């Protein structure tokens, strides 16, 4: 009789423990899967933008060319996709960017695609404390030199609700004048 009582008590305790774990996991799932405050930044991208593109060398801007970009929800509230293009470096540039915030990694994740190559580049980073700049870091493989995983920095500067700038920095260049591309977006 005593044995039977002990077994029942153990089973009850185990069931209670399992119930507690499930609650915790459900809370975690809610925390990491639902869009939050950080996803509100993505709304800043939405809309149609005129685009001014320039190459840079040692801090000196090259000739500007113009294009257009349109940003829409890729997955509503979670991921934004921006598609755009224009003439650049003598060719017709076409690009797509997908931006989202990973609650678990606690960082913004970006996917960069363009007609300039066939690579699918990604970057990851955070907002600056003032919330005005998004800094992400990624790597590229340089097919011209055979180098792999060269560090690249992507910067979005939100000047106002109607203007933002996007910069590409080739970090192995050195400590200064790392910017190689610059885009200025103005809301249409």
């Amino acid at each position, binding site marked *: 009789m005593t044995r039977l009582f002990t077994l029942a008590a153990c089973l009850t305790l185990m069931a209670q423990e399992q119930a507690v774990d499930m609650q915790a996991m459900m809370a975690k799932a809610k925390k990491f899967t639902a869009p939050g405050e950080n996803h509100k930044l993505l709304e800043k991208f939405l809309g149609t933008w005129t685009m001014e593109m320039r*190459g*840079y*060398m*040692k801090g*000196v*801007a*090259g*000739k500007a060319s113009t294009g257009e970009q349109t940003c829409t929800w890729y997955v509503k509230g979670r991921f934004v996709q921006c598609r755009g293009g224009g003439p650049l*470096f*003598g*060719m017709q540039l076409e690009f797509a960017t997908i931006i989202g915030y990973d609650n678990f990694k606690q960082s913004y994740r970006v996917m960069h695609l363009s007609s*300039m190559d066939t690579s699918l580049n990604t970057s990851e980073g955070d907002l600056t404390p003032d919330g005005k700049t998004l800094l992400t870091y990624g790597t*590229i493989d*340089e097919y*011209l*030199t055979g*180098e792999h995983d*060269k560090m*690249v920095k992507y910067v979005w500067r939100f000047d106002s609700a109607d203007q933002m700038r996007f910069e*590409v920095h*080739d970090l*192995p*260049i*050195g400590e200064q*004048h*790392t910017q*190689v*591309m610059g885009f200025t977006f103005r809301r249409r």
Partner: protein
Amino acid sequence: MTHFWWAWVLPAALQATPLLLLAAALDLLLPRLLDPRWRAGIWLLAALKLAAPFEAGGVLPNPVAGVPPAWTAFVPATWLCGAALLILGSAVWFRRQRAALRPVECRGLSREVFRSLAPEFGAVARIVESDRLDGPVTIGQTVYWPAGLENRLSEAEQRQVLRHELAHVVRRDGWRELGWSALVAVFWFHPLVWWAARRMRAIREECCDRTAAELPGHCAETYRRALLRVLGWVHALAPGMALVDPRMPLTNRLALLEQRPHSHWRGIAALAALAIVWPLARWANQESHAVAEWVARPPGSLQLRYMVLERLAEENGK
């Protein structure tokens, strides 16, 4: 300024080199076969090539590909310093020398001879006298006459010499000299440009000899004697167009005075030679692309990528 050097000065220097070499060859090999005015024209073509290369700023068409890495910035900086020093030094030297001439109104026989000759040339010119000069010099529209020279040269000799100086005024040789000086200042690193400017000074004198010789009343014997006499007195360099430059031998000028006017066919043949060498200049232009790109390699691999992609797009567009 860095971009100006890589996109303009260096390509222009490289592109003009074959023409400068050809002009030098024609000038050296055929000095007495070709009229000095034709030789001056050939040098002028080379000068134009220096001032206006085939593709202005075209070697590095995209500023992205145009700004060289840090180490190559030293070269444009050196060029700029050299050019600035040269311009400044030349300007100061010219101003001082000209101020030192202290001209006074020319009176006497020389002025009378000058006045009688000026209408013949249709030139708006004046003559002044200076006791700081060894030989006659023309600066712009003004002929500087050494004080006392009229006592050492006969009237006939003075007439011949003044014709030569008036030819400088009519030909606007002062502007030509200024143009070549500007080219030397910009392309000071190019030895052929220095040499060309020096040759042009000599050729200008030959041109004026020729112009004076073609006028009625010219006497080669008197003129030759005047030249040799003045050469004996000249010791110092003077600003402007000097009748006699102590650094340059008179041999060629004296020999040219003996010759009859050249046929223009020789000049046309020389131009034909230029036409043959023109593709060579184009080749040099292409080479200058390669050289400039090599020295102006971008610092980042992405920049290199953009440069290559741009060139690829250009190739595909052709």
